[in-house]
């Protein structure tokens, strides 16, 4: 072709490196070795965190040792507490998946493989700091020891569902555990988290906010909006991007992960940014603490990309073998967060296979007992749900005349 007639353009459509029947090439993740990434002081300038947004902060090495500048100060008790909360999250999820298959729940979403992120983050926050979660941060609640029966009543949509049957299972709201009402619309919680942080700053309070979003959802406009407002007003907020590589059937490159990182979105927006091994309990705690200290010291927001893998299906409506290799998680290079913390604790001499098995058993019993109690309060399937009359409440503070008329029309 001559110089005058350029070659025809082509549309580039990113693809994952593995589809069903293939092996994923995970080198696209660009990992750093444990301990290799520097730890700047919390008052670093956002623009100077550029390298940290492209590297990967890791603490636990392959042998279960904690290495490098990000090793956090955590007691064995704290580590055991974290391990237990992760395990509880995982067992709870497994149990609820079974219950869903038994049609006791209409729907469920697990967080298999991502437990370290929410649990360790929760431990790095102070009571009163507010989380604005998605549907995959049940670990925040487990770390705060929310009564399981209450959670299950929400999941069963029964008469004791604190959300009065109005929300799909898993869309919890727990003000007293610093857990904002989960929305079914993606990304809306992000500017809300920033606004909450701004409010805290306006009032001269000391509380910070933490907002959560998935890799896929960063494409939504409200993610950008949150970055802009957080930067402009230097809001005391942590912006957590959980990059579990998938958004339903869609690979993270379709959200814009190719050739860059989600952490890097923060740099241009003037926000300090870190990319962190999300399956490394110690790294999650350390990075969360760094960001929380920064926010609480009036130094502004931090964006953290947590690199992890959605080991399970998107939800009980999804079948991931249709779009990715069935054994993908086994080959995910960052491993299993529960196994890694367990290995570390054993290495420290603070845990054993026996203790682990016993804890698992105790948790299973606790969960089974809770389920039994929750089921005794009914479920969507058996119709023991909040009354039809309650459906008309809470639309407004006081029920206006037109809703009274409609309630009468329904005859309830």
């Amino acid at each position: 072709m001559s110089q005058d007639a350029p070659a025809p353009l082509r549309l580039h459509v990113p693809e994952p490196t593995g589809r069903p029947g293939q092996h994923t090439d995970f080198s696209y993740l660009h990992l750093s070795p444990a301990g290799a990434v520097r730890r700047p002081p919390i008052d670093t300038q956002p623009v100077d965190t550029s390298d940290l947004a492209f590297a990967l902060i890791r603490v636990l090495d392959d042998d279960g040792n904690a290495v490098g500048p990000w090793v956090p100060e955590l007691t064995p008790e704290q580590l055991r507490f974290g391990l237990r909360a992760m395990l509880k999250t995982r067992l709870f999820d497994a149990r609820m998946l079974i219950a869903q298959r038994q049609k006791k729940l209409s729907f469920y979403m697990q967080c298999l493989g991502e437990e370290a992120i929410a649990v360790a983050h929760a431990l790095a926050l102070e009571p009163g700091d507010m989380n604005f979660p998605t549907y995959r941060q049940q670990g925040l609640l487990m770390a705060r020891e929310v009564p399981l029966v209450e959670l299950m009543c929400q999941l069963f949509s029964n008469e004791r569902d604190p959300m009065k049957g109005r929300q799909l299972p898993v869309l919890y709201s727990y003000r007293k555990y610093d857990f904002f009402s989960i929305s079914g619309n993606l990304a809306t919680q992000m500017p809300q988290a920033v606004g909450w942080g701004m409010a805290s700053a306006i009032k001269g309070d000391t509380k910070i906010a933490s907002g959560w979003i998935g890799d896929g959802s960063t494409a939504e406009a409200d993610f950008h909006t949150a970055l802009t407002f957080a930067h402009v007003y230097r809001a005391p907020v942590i912006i957590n991007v959980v990059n579990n590589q998938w958004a339903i059937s869609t690979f993270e490159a379709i959200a814009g992960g190719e050739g860059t990182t989600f952490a890097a979105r923060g740099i241009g927006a003037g926000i300090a940014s870190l990319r962190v091994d999300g399956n490394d309990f110690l790294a999650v705690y350390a990075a969360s603490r760094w960001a929380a200290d920064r926010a609480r010291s009036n130094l502004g927001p931090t964006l953290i990309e947590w690199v992890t893998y959605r080991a399970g299906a998107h939800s009980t409506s999804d079948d991931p073998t249709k779009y990715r290799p069935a054994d993908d998680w086994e080959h995910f290079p960052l491993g299993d967060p529960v196994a890694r913390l367990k290995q570390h604790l054993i290495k420290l001499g603070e845990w054993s296979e026996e203790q682990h098995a016993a804890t698992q058993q105790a948790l299973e019993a606790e969960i089974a007992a809770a389920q039994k109690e929750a089921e005794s309060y009914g479920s969507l399937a058996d119709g023991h749900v909040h009354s039809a009359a309650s459906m008309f409440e809470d639309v407004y503070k006081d029920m206006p005349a037109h809703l009274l008329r409609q309630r009468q029309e329904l005859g309830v």
Partner: protein
Amino acid sequence: MATMTMIQALRSAMDVMLERDDNVVIYGEDVGYFGGVFRCTEGLQQKYGSSRVFDAPISESGIVGTAVGMGAYGLRPVVEIQFADYFYPATDQIVSEVARLRYRSAGEFIAPLTIRMPCGGGIYGGQTHSQSPEAFFTHVCGLRTVMPSNPYDAKGLLIAAIECDDPVIFLEPKRLYNGPFDGHHDRPVTPWSKHPLGEVPEGHYTAPLDSAAVYRPGTQLTVLTYGTMVFVAEAAALESGVDAEIIDLRSLWPLDLDTIVNSVKKTGRCAVVHEATRTGGFGAELVALVQEHCFYHLEAPIERVTGWDTPYPHAQEWAYFPGPRRVAEGFKRAMERK
């Protein structure tokens, strides 16, 4: 003729149009490799390649916004919003751009888009997988809003929408994807393969974008409805014994007013049935038009049977959904008063 589910009929419409017209492209969240969460586009990427059928970032404003640019270039994008409940981030693009581009540029640029969205309830989807937002679109001049109630219309209307130079909001009552659900959630649904409107030609055909269908002729009461409620209204007519003339609007706006007015003048009574929240719903416009054009023929107030003015609850789904019992009561009220 083959029978098809509504999903198959929609897929067939897209297949036909991808084949016939190079300028047709399809994209949206999860619609490419996987074929969409309702599997409507299954197999189309394999057949037409990933520059004709592809996955999009989770950004409804981006999906619609880029489609406007493609339309200005000369393509005919058919985009999917995964659930109608998620169109809101695209509101500015839809209202300020898609709907007004032809007008503001005095015809220099057009937006010949088809925006597909599964809508409606009855699937235990809660607040954010059950909404019927048609009234947001029917209030916006420049848009066409369409909702089929069966596989035959679904395919014919979708082809017509893709071929149309005006932008079309194409609402798909997801509760009808597999069969004509009549609101009796405790009974099994007849599959489309057993319903006459499940018979769908393989090739190209269109259904008109501006005409209603008299789904069930009747003499006592005109029922204006669309989507899933067509079948609920049918059940309610049978169960109430009211000889209702059920009009399936199909095109919500522009509206086939003649068919409506002729029917109401004949029956002297009218009920409007929709799933959406009542206040400011499309039913209000229907009532306003009927009273304007048929005032002297009306023997009783026009009844509205609709979703309540609350968000769509999860556990109280069947108390919210205007099922056959409530619709039948509405019919009786419309008959009693005189």
